């Protein structure tokens, strides 16, 4: 009797189990609420398109440092990592040490690789393999406050080189008495794009520290001079362009321009509402004739961990959610990022009105991007880069740009020496 009963039970339970298992659980860690929202919408689209490979996605949001630390420990100890994780670019090298705990994505990426801005895949690679997919190009652009430009009589389409830009800055200062721009001292977005534009970087391809080379020194000196010689720039209130104080300052027309990556658009729409309709986006000025007018900055490399029990499914979902054409259009629509696939930039969907197109004066934001698509060089991502960033953000910028206590050459030499240790 007992045997029959258990058999009957098994007959009832097994199919039920099998049925409930048709949805595979995948865990995802991120450090950004907006990213999580995006993945949750992506999984709905995935499930609609893949009835046989249903996913039950659990996207968890942790504070930035917390998430990266937890993930590092989980990969190091071999237990507890999620299936998929967002890893911010300046942390990425930490996860490429030793036996890499992430899964190469090349087999799925190779067929579509050509449609990507190549530099944005290279940054998450090691030894010819790619371990992460980015949300955006992060093309550095110049945001102009057109009210102030008009008041100062500056035609921004005549600005081609940084020299032109400085001249315009002097004009702005003379005519309306406002600083042309702000410069960060505790973050790196005022500096990194400028050296990347000139094909220089913190480190070279082999991971050697190059932060104190001539181009880098001259560029930091250039920023210094904007503040202390031409006096057309001020240190960003709060020290960086993501501080509450800066948002308030800029929102009130505190400075005429700012150069930041494209993903900064969302900060305007969300934190500087009074600038609506006043801002225009242009490529960065060039350093030399024919020089690059942009740089790819920042990024989140999303990766699949080796600890995942469903590596193939996780990979497929990741490549779908961040690498497919539809996904790249959604990334623009939902997040306001400049997606990594350049073949979508000219897609009509990109011109549909949304809160970003409504905010900026550009009739076609992606036209700006298409102009500079081939003028973006990859940054070198490696262990030493992490150390250089730490040095310049905690010391160099403060010393050279903030309290003007050291020259660019001296401060960068010191930073290089520390980063080499």
């Amino acid at each position, binding site marked *: 009797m007992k045997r029959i009963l258990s058999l009957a039970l098994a007959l009832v339970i097994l199919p039920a189990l099998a049925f409930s298992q048709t949805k595979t659980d995948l865990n995802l860690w991120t450090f950004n609420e907006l990213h999580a929202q995006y993945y949750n919408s992506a999984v709905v689209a995935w499930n609609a398109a893949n009835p046989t490979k249903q996913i039950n996605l659990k996207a968890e949001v942790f504070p930035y*440092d917390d998430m990266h630390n937890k993930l*590092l420990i989980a990969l*190091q100890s071999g237990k507890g990592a999620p299936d998929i994780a967002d890893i911010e670019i300046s942390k990425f090298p930490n996860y490429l040490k030793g*036996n890499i705990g992430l899964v190469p994505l090349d087999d799925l990426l190779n067929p579509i690789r050509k449609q990507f801005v190549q530099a944005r895949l290279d940054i998450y690679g090691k030894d010819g393999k790619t371990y992460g997919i980015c949300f955006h190009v992060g093309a550095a652009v110049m945001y102009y406050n057109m009210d102030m430009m008009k008041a100062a009589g500056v035609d921004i389409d005549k600005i081609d080189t940084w020299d032109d830009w400085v001249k315009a800055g002097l004009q702005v200062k003379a005519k309306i008495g406002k600083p042309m721009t702000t410069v960060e001292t*505790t973050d790196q977005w005022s500096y990194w794009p400028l050296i990347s534009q000139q094909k220089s970087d913190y480190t070279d391809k082999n991971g050697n520290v190059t932060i104190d080379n001539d181009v880098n020194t001259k560029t930091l000196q250039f920023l210094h001079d904007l503040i202390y010689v031409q006096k057309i720039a001020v240190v960003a*209130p709060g020290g960086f362009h993501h501080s509450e*104080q800066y948002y308030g300052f800029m929102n009130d027309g505190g400075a005429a321009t700012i150069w930041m990556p494209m993903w900064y658009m969302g900060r305007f729409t969300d934190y500087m509402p009074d600038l609506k309709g006043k801002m225009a986006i242009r490529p960065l000025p060039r350093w030399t004739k024919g020089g690059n007018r942009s740089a790819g900055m920042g990024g989140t490399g999303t990766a699949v961990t080796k600890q995942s029990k469903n590596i193939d499914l996780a990979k497929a979902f990741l490549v779908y959610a961040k690498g497919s054409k539809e996904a790249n259009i959604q990334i623009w629509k939902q997040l306001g990022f400049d997606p990594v696939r350049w073949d979508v930039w000219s897609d009509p969907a990109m011109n549909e009105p949304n809160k970003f197109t409504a905010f900026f004066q550009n009739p076609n934001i992606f036209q700006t991007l298409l102009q500079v698509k081939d003028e973006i060089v990859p940054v070198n991502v490696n262990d030493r880069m992490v150390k250089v960033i730490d040095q310049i953000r905690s*010391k160099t910028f403060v010393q050279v740009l903030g309290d003007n206590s050291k020259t660019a050459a001296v401060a960068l030499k010191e930073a290089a020496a*520390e980063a080499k*240790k």
Partner: protein
Amino acid sequence: MKSLTNTMRVAPYVFVAPFLVAFLCFYLYPIGTTVLMSFQNVVPGQTSFIGLTNYARIVDADFLDALRVGFIYTFLTIAILVPLPIVFAVLLNSGAKRLNAVHRAMFFLPSLVSVVVAGTVFRLMFASTDKAIINSLLKLVGINPVDWIMGGAPQAMFLMVMLATWRWLGVNLIYFLSGLQSIPEELYEAAEMDGANPVQRFMRITLPLLKPTIIFVTTISIFGGFAMFEESYMFWQGLSPNNVGLTMVGLLFKRGFQQGDLGMASTYGLVLMLIVFTLSILQLKLFGFFKKED
């Protein structure tokens, strides 16, 4: 009978077992691994021994900054958090008993607030805009707004010491109060009869008899000072301009978790232990702790 002796023999071990297990798993084992890791390059799956390489890399600019911040912070917190609570404790001890309890609770309350909450509140209070509470108070008395958090080393140290004082005053106060309450009342009565004034009574009776408490509080303050991390982290999120808020534990955190070099972090952990140990021994010697009482 035999089984009874057996239980008698076994029982003590059973009772201490929970502690022993916890101690072995959560103290001795990690300490051992830390020592081991300080000789290693710790990379997932490819950890290797590198001899003294980590130790050779100890002294760098960050380390010197952390050492400086650690020493100044510890010195200041001890300079404030020993005398001030003693004064308050004496005042509270002499006051009306019922009011005493209320005051004690008031002083103690901040230490129950999590550092994260307290740090966030302090950060907002001391924000550099002129609308922040502290700066707007300064403006009322005609002082220009101060850039507290990003302004430089003196302001940064002020913030950290201020937060520590607010949080730990009450805890130290309780230590000193209990120290005071163990001093026999007769001593004061006798001294009073002999014509000692309150200052003399404080200097000659209270302070000497509080010495064990003072030694204890100083010792934990040395450790607390050098091990400080959360306060600084709450103000600067691990990246302070010119390292004005970098502590030894901050450096350990930076190397281990932000830069993924757990071997180096372990080395700094041991260095921190060494520093605290040396200072504590020195301090105990200074107080005559090791001298035999005559």
